[in-house]
């Protein structure tokens, strides 16, 4: 997708997110952003820094504290020609707007047989591990993957973030764009200038391997890569690591091809085990690769508990030790 002549710059993920919005705001007058503190303040994580100055308050719109209002108005704006990006300050605060997503944004196309559509991107930082107050740290991807009519995207680095966000803004349907908080400034990747897209629905194979397929996304990508590095060194083991990047629709080909190659799978995520997206991955493997499986699929997930206050947060998050134990379990089964 990227022409080789294009310049690149090293960016953090939050810069990649900002850069994607900047590109699209420049390209298309109908792209606007709505959210709390996104204007003069540039967003509480600075995702929209500088955009208010550059594009003005008619396009970078500070709203009242009103998530239903943000999403509901975005639906009306989208159905009437705009391409709103709705920023929810933390994913844990999307629930007051849940009704608008569940009964409208995701259904309007079907309800009107295509007459009205909702090309809205809902962006939200999410996930645990940054010592945020209670309720700020939920990983509830599966509330949205279970919602027919919306796509769910989770980048883990700047390059993916920019390409996926541009693809999401271009997408004719609603996209839930989840930004793992721990990834915002934890690493930098080369990001090309200008517009490029990464297809929604394509996973990214971060590392080839033969013994087990490890699926993860978001902030757990970093932890998984690190856990596996030591494991491979110490145990002479070869792991394939796949960043799913899109959680709906899942990348069926990549997932099943990998499991059919390795015969084993582990899934790592922050959300509670019950109802987590891991279960959909297991189900997909059951459907496509039953006869290839040499061990039960392993899950390393958050607990079936709320994310606790920060003194216990690290206990909540899947640890390197748990990731390693799960992989060893599968390989030694």
């Amino acid at each position: 997708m990227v022409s080789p002549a294009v310049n690149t710059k090293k960016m953090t993920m939050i810069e990649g997110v900002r850069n994607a919005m900047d590109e699209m705001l420049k390209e298309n007058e109908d792209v606007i952003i709505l959210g709390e503190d996104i204007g003069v303040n540039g967003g509480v994580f600075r995702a929209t820094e500088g955009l208010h100055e550059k594009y003005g308050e008619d396009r970078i719109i500070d709203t009242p504290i009103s998530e239903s209002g943000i999403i509901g108005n975005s639906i009306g704006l989208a159905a009437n020609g705009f391409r709103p990006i709705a920023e929810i300050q933390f994913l844990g605060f999307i629930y007051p707007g849940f009704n608008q997503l569940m009964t409208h944004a995701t259904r309007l196309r079907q309800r009107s047989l295509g007459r009205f559509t909702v090309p809205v991107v809902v962006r939200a930082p999410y996930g645990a591990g940054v010592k945020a107050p209670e309720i700020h740290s939920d990983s509830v991807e599966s509330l949205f993957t279970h919602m027919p009519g919306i796509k769910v995207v989770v980048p883990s680095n700047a390059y993916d973030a920019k390409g996926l966000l541009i693809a999401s803004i271009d997408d004719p349907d609603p996209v839930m764009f989840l930004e793992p908080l721990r990834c915002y400034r934890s690493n930098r990747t080369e990001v090309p200038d200008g517009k490029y897209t990464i297809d929604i629905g394509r996973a990214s194979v971060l590392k080839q391997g033969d013994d087990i397929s490890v699926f993860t996304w978001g902030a757990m990508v970093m932890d998984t890569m690190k856990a596996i590095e030591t494991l491979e060194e110490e145990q002479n083991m070869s792991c394939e690591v796949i960043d799913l990047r899109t959680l709906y629709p899942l990348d069926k080909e990549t997932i099943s091809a990998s499991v059919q190659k390795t015969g084993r799978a582990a899934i790592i995520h922050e959300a509670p085990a019950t109802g987590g997206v891991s279960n959909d991955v297991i189900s997909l493997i059951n459907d496509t690769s039953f006869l290839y499986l040499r061990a039960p699929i392993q899950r390393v997930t958050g607990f079936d508990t709320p994310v606790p206050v920060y003194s216990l947060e690290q206990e909540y998050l899947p640890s390197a030790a748990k990731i390693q134990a799960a992989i060893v379990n599968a390989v030694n089964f």
Partner: protein
Amino acid sequence: MIEDFPMQQIINEDGEIVDADALNDISTEKVKSFYYKMLCARMLDKKCVNLQRQGKIGTYVPYEGQEAAQIGSAVALEEGDWIFPTYRDHAATLTFGHSMRNLLLNWRGRPEGNVPPEGVNIFPPGIPIASQLLHATGAAWAEKKHGSDRVSLVYFGDGATSEGDFHEALNFGSVFNIPTIFFNQNNGYAISVPMERQMKTKTIAQKGLAYDMDCLRIDGNDVLAVFAATKASVDRARANQGPTLIEAVTWRYGAHTTADDASKYRDQNESETRRETTDPLLRVQRYLQTQNTWNEDWLKTIEEEITDEIETAIAEMEAYPEPDLRQLFDYVYDRPTWTIQEQVNQHLAVQGEE
């Protein structure tokens, strides 16, 4: 507080002129055209109740008694404006240009029911109470941002004022000075719950004070008052003078839906009394009679005309091609995801085997 919000009328229950100045702007021809539309709506409504009894359509939501509120407001709009109805506002959507056939198809459980004619901006009826108010502000905001003078009008009931979305929409409307008419039909009941249990206030109009929004209370059974008030609000909105909250006080004669039994929670005699007193059609008839412009032959002619129109629409509905599975699968996304595509394939494989 209720004294601050007197119920505005142009003609009263007896057909007498209350506000001659306001009436001046409305020709007798116009009044008759309102009557025609109200009669059409009423005849269609009665017909639908029958169709439901015959099993030709599903559970039906009648609006009988609310014709003036819906039609008086819908006629105040123009091409390019937007309306956001609830499940009960098909007198309004019909008036604003929805096809009678599609309207009937809606009650027959067909997705086409939600599709208005090309160029007519009617959203699918809002089902989750009050949620559509925010689409109305969003769509009108888009008009304003694009520099047009089109407006939106959103319908909602007395019960809808209790939902958070009512509040958030009025707040957005006032903060961003959005050209939306918040048109409340206060029919006294939310299913079984009377207004007195829904809110402490005696008026809905006063809720506009919480947003420094223009707000008024009108006799929702006086089609002329509804028209004039809506028109004035629409004009203000077009001139970028902001949104308005209109409380149109009215009454539904029947049950909440054909599945509801109103006698469980109220004395239905009240409705019978009101048919003789505050009825919106009767009032126009009385007014025209006092003006000597009422004519029984005219009534007969238009009744026949409307009967024909309704019968044609019903025939079209009944002859309408069978539902198509693609309506279920093809419109969830612009293009079906592989998950959906696989589900279609499996579905067809098995259902073909049957």
